[in-house]
């Protein structure tokens, strides 16, 4: 019961880990991705991605700019041009 989450920038692979849920600020509204999400593609507006490692844990926020999210069979991949932290 885990979602594979990858955050990639042009310079490096920032994250590649299994998490519980990720909330992404999509261009047309925030969306949360859990394991088994249907294939989905969206652009991401500048903002914070919230990563929930466990179901009731505190989310970790990652600021991204110029992003793009893709949900496929192998989890969620966020391509971002700039990542803070």
């Amino acid at each position: 019961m885990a979602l594979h989450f990858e955050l990639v920038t042009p310079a490096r692979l920032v994250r590649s880990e299994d998490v519980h849920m990720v909330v992404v600020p999509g261009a047309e509204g925030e969306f949360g991705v859990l394991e088994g999400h249907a294939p989905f593609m969206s652009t991401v507006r500048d903002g914070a991605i919230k990563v929930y490692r466990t179901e009731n844990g505190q989310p970790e926020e990652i600021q991204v700019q110029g992003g793009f999210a893709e949900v496929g069979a192998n989890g969620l991949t966020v391509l971002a041009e700039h990542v803070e932290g």
Partner: protein
Amino acid sequence: MASLKELKGRINSVKSTQKITKAKQMVAAAKLRRAQANAEAARPYAARLAEVMGSIASKVVVSENSPKLLAGTGKDQVHLLVVANSDKGLCGAFNSNIVKAAILAAKDLQAQGKTVLFYLVGRKGRAVIRRNYPNAILASFDTTDVREPGFAEAEKIAAELVSLYEAGKFDVAHLFYAKFKSALAQDPTQLQIIPVPAPKAVAADTGAVVEYEPEEEAILAELLPRYLRTQLFGALLENQASEQGASMTAMDNATRNAGELINKLTIQYNRSRQAAITTELIEIIAGAEAL
């Protein structure tokens, strides 16, 4: 025959040259490792983006309403050659190889009756192109004040190219850079960047229907400039690795040549020293016999 003093001076000067080339070789070797690591770190992003581009581009039909970056201006008259060079020398034929490839392509295009313009990145190669095509340099990008061109530079170059493109200054853009194969081989490569050639769609049809938000066209319009930036960034990184590789090889050769020259000069020096001693001895003996 050069005098002993002259020979000694030459040996010393070659020795100090060798010191420089050796130092540069070692610096290049260290930098090459970093540049290679950078190029490798950039690969996942480029691969993912190309994949996404491929799957979207295969769903969108190119029409008049498609973004200009994908569909082109409808003309094929003015070609812009983006030539990426380094700022520093001491790297063998690295820069001249890229420039040569660009000039060859320019001649080819001109033979077909097209107009050729240049956009230069980096300091080297500017002089050669300016001499060959005095009025064809549209703009150039200065990288002398950054230590190593990174994504920020790629972004600026891409933004400038897109604005020039939208102003109708050119119809097609080609990028010239050196692809890094190994420290010994760097291939000058030509790549069409504008209009963006649609990446080949990966035939990984999983059967699942992918949902898009916003719709495909809007995503594509946003992805195109990003794809361009990524390609420029990749080329800059490849160029850096190539430059260091070429520099390492060239400096290795130079160090070896200097060593050979030192050996040759040393032998010559010792020979003439011996000859001088022999002459002196003969003179002394002859003088002693005359008494």
